[in-house]
């Protein structure tokens, strides 16, 4: 894969009725289309596959360029020839999660029964369901065991879940800036974001397709999210009290500060690329996520056979290191081979996508080792 390799998104449709996929909420869903991309070549014995799980608003386009695009995929600095996920050696797969709006069946997709968008008739999907449908895709590609499954933030939850639901389907897992259950603070922040969408009159109980979008609400929810992705220090460094295109403050409610302008820009550009209902569904799936559900963490982790590399960032207050350390401790108790590092960084939760040099070093070394130690 060279620097400007052109990548095309592929689609896999399955679970046609009556073979719908049973979901955790009790409902069934089908047919399901899953958007995915692959990078590199699958080797003859299909032992070099790495499954990458994206974060909340990510997509299947992890690396390379779409035809005519000037921006590469979201993890292009990590996936490619000679990069951490070296596509000269490994076959990398990334699929859009269930419930999203980037090619995989979600609330904005057309329900074949009604010929209309699902909107709120879309079933409540969970992290477990998202993981399950990606297993269908990996089976479809003929891969029995992944060399590694990897994810940051929400993607980390899927990678962790994969190793529990399908213990013999991955040699290793890399979890970055993630945890094992959503905490009250994480739920609270999501609820504010959801209320921003729901209270937008254009949301109209989820039925806005073909009409005016709940742009104000969605934009506001994204502004909140961006605050949680940065640290106080990184915000201070990036914006400080700098004013936006003016010399003095205006003594009014128009944009004064750069940080205000940045958040507004982030919010409004999000409206162009993401579906409000998908945001509601995915954030709810994250909030429902609790690996333990009343059980002891080490008991829940007991099926695990994979090796782990767990990475956190010192200034990440959205997914703080202590949560991953609890996971590390339970894995230690269970005699799981686990490596752990908290990378010193000022970038907050964003560090997952920013601190590429340190992560690339850890991941490329780790994959080399896993590759040697895999048992075919």
């Amino acid at each position, binding site marked *: 894969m060279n620097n400007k390799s052109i990548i095309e998104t592929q689609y896999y449709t399955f679970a046609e009725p009556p073979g719908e996929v049973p979901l955790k909420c009790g409902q069934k869903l089908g047919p399901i289309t899953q958007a995915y991309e692959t990078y590199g070549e699958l080797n003859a014995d299909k032992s070099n596959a790495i499954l990458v799980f994206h974060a909340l608003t990510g997509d299947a386009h992890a690396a390379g360029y779409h035809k005519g695009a000037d921006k590469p995929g979201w993890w292009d600095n990590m996936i490619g020839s000679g990069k951490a996920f070296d596509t000269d050696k490994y076959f990398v797969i990334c699929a859009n999660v269930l419930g999203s709006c980037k090619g995989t069946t979600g609330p904005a997709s057309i329900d074949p029964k009604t010929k209309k968008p699902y909107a709120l008739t879309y079933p409540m999907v969970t992290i477990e369901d998202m993981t399950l449908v990606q297993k269908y895709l990996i089976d479809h590609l003929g891969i029995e065991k992944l060399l590694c499954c990897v994810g940051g933030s929400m993607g980390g939850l899927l990678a962790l879940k994969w190793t529990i639901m399908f213990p013999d389907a991955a040699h290793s897992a890399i979890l970055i800036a993630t945890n094992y259950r959503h905490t009250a603070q994480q739920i609270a922040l999501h609820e504010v974001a959801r209320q921003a969408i729901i209270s937008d009159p254009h949301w109209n109980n989820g039925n806005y397709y073909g009409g005016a979008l709940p742009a104000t609400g969605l934009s506001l929810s994204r502004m909140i999210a961006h605050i949680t992705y940065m640290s106080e220090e990184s915000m201070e460094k990036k914006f400080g009290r700098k004013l936006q295109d003016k010399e003095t403050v205006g003594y009014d409610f128009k944009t004064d500060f750069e940080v205000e302008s940045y958040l507004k820009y982030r919010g409004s550009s999000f409206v162009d690329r993401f579906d409000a209902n998908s945001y509601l569904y995915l954030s709810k799936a994250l909030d429902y996520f609790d690996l333990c559900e009343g059980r002891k963490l080490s008991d829940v982790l007991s099926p695990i056979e994979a090796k782990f590399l767990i990475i956190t960032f010192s200034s990440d207050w959205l997914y703080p290191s202590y949560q991953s350390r609890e996971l590390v*401790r339970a894995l230690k*108790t269970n005699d799981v081979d686990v490596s*752990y590092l908290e990378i*010193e960084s000022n970038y907050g939760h964003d560090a997952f996508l920013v601190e590429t040099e340190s992560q690339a070093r850890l991941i490329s*070394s780790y994959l080399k080792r896993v590759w040697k130690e895999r048992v075919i």
Partner: protein
Amino acid sequence: MKKRLDYDVIMDLIKPNSRVLDLGCGDGELLALLKDKKDCHGTGIEIDEKAIYECMDKEVTVLQGDIDSSLQDYSDKRFDYVILNESVQQILNPETVIMESLRVGKRVIVGIPNFCHTSSRIQVALFGKVPITKWLPYKWYNTPNLRFLSLKDFRQFCQDKGITIEKERFLRTTGEISLWPNLLAHHGVFLLKKE
């Protein structure tokens, strides 16, 4: 890279195919040697971020953490060997850590610098100054060492705690010695056991 005599001695004490926990594993060199030469399955505990990248480059399992709080998650006799090489003098609660190591490890290997080597004694006795040697090059205000002990002190500790010293090896720059270690050895390596 400089040859580490203490690594040779430790390697010699460890049986092949063992499960090893290295507390304060540094750059992971010893764990990598044990993996390559003795087919050991090792885990390292290390606090320093830079050292952890080096461990990862050497393809060994490493966990970032304090030695003092790293042992509680392991079950009894999980490891064949727990190594505390050049780290006992730098930890907050050496007594607890050594006892905990003996709980999670069937055997514990402790490597310590001898603060009562002859050259140190001369500096204290003749010049009235806290010793600075090639092996202990720090000044009082920048030393990472929190504990100062001699080989004799360590033996006494083991006796008081009912710890069996199965083997002991002593090192000078030139190699191993056996005569008058508390005067002549810079380092001691002890193989410990407690039922």
